[in-house]
């Protein structure tokens, strides 16, 4: 180790991983429905796309987790984005990996809900 910058570089890289191990700091909680119906409809690539895209952008304020069936199986894969500050919730339906990337970019980074993917626009 020849400089503080080198140390800083290692720290930034490793921080993503360790940062996950604390509770309660996330601004957004992304919940992917991972019951049998969700998995069968393709929730797994959606979940992975969220994780990868959030990592690529170095988002520290997002917690990505799974949840069980929320009862609207015909719309799976279902993803809920919860704003932990005010408790508001946006429900995205019939998600794909490509759609997930857009939700990360538009919603999580820029704060614009992708209305066309929401349950309101699809039912």
């Amino acid at each position: 180790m020849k400089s503080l910058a080198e140390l800083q570089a290692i720290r930034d890289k490793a921080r993503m991983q360790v940062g996950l191990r604390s509770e309660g700091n996330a601004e957004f909680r992304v919940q992917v429905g991972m019951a049998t119906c969700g998995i069968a409809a393709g929730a797994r690539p959606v979940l992975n796309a969220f994780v990868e895209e959030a990592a690529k952008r170095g988002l520290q304020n997002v917690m990505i987790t799974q949840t069980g069936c929320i009862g609207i199986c015909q719309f799976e894969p279902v993803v809920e984005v919860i704003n932990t500050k005010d408790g508001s919730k946006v429900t995205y339906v019939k998600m794909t990996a490509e759609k997930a990337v857009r939700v990360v970019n538009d919603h999580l980074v820029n704060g614009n809900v992708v209305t066309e993917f929401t349950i309101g626009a699809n039912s």
Partner: protein
Amino acid sequence: MYRSNVLVCGGTGCTSSNSEVIIERLKEEIKNHGLEKEVNVVRTGCFGLCALGPIMVVYPEGAFYSMVKPDDVPEIVEEHLLKGRIVKRLLYQETVVDDNAIKSLNETPFYAKQRRIALRNCGVINPEVIDEYIAVDGYKALGKVLTEMTPQEVIDVVKASGLRGRGGAGFPTGLKWSFAAANQADQKYVCCNADEGDPGAFMDRSILEGDPHVVLESMAIAGYAIGASQGYIYIRAEYPIAVKRLQKAIDQAHEYGLLGKDIFGTGFDFDISLRLGAGAFVCGEETALMTSIEGKRGEPRPRPPFPALKGLFQKPTILNNVETWANVTQIILNGADWFRSIGTERSPGTKVFALGGKIKHTGLVEVPMGTTLREIVEEIGGGVPDGHTFKAAQTGGPSGGCIPASELDIKIDFDNLASIGAMMGSGGMIVMDDTACMVDIAKFFLEFTVDESCGKCTPCRVGTRRLLEILNKITSGNGTMEDIDRMEELCYYLKENSLCALGQTAPNPVLSTLKYFRDEYIAHVKDKHCPAGVCKALTNYVIDPQKCRGCTLCARNCPVGAISGSVKVPHVIDTKKCIKCGACMEKCKFNAIEKK
């Protein structure tokens, strides 16, 4: 990037209850479900709640699973990691709020009153991966010290923080460093005392197992402050996991150039090597420890000269305990004022205690100095189990004393404990309930010091043995009141005349039990009676004829045939034959057998 981290405790406690197997099963199951790219399994250090081990925590949800068995693993993987449904039945019940929610671990009684500084990374990072330590600001303090501060400034910060040695004596750390810095020499040394030997104490082990790099970093900081280029960690060989992780940490630090030559390009050289102790208790004493590192028989030597002047290999040396080291980096990063804001005026900061004995939550706790004993025992520790009542807490191991129930509200810090005849010690805290005999406890610790006395000085070598003989005489029912007086006198003689702290503190268990539980000693001597029913020579088992139904179960279980009686007729114990093993009492279904 993983979406989930599964932390499994790899401390000694959980390892001995199979956490290694759990980790293997976990990896296997995760692979079977094709989740290996999404879920990261991390073996961490101790979480502290050893009573509930093996422990597993799943993030980001923060689900705290306790007493996990290898056979629970498939369910956790399939339900939680794959489908996102937390396995409620395995959760630590204190974290379950209602059917749908779990509350944060930090809100549970065990963790709520804790403040983790020395243990901050234990149970958070993987101790075998240096990158994880760096991620939580590891080696940042060393970088700051080497690039922004002069050695004198480092010493000033540590001095101003008021940090006192956590090994037990509570000597101001900054002062120690300034002595060593002031002495000129061609070579100086920085040592770490990891020869944790008090029965029941395991805080140093847990820090070394859970966060080994913090010790390396702090030692390098001290090396810079006093002008030393070589460090030694003296660790007992009975801590195999800690030794392994320390060595791994040293190797990784070398690889990154955080130990070795020209650290951070500043021209500062520092290296650390391990020395394994063979388990002699006296080697935890600073001069004996250094003698042992030199390759000689581990015996203490007279002070002065103090190690800061002539220590290891006759060179200026500082020696600090593991827990002390674990505080140093945080003081450098956050400043002396921050550290002073925690704890009490004369004992700033926190202290780690190893809670053991008759307490619900056996484990490791770190609390601000000034926390009361009652808070530690009743709130954090969950109180005394099985309906028994608190009788005393023993702190400081064989060098410490017993704190009785009447002192439960004492605010724990170095000076308060010393004022009531106990001692902070390294932080072992053994809780005793009403089934403990205080004379027997004193005898237990004396047996330990008799075994561990190195034999160099007469007061300790002979004195501890004479003390033990008197205690044996008392517990076997042959003691006289004069014995108690002679014993007390001998205690003070030992305190004043022994060469090192081992002998000087060896009488503490006797003195403090005499101070608070003299009535028990008198009961043993005058009434030939052990109030707690522990001392076998003074205890008789008797059958209450009112309660005995004559079921013959006790007679059939007595190993020496001391119980006689026929079916449906109350039985009788022949006290001459009885060996007082207690088997009859355990078997009796009618509570008819009593100790008297």
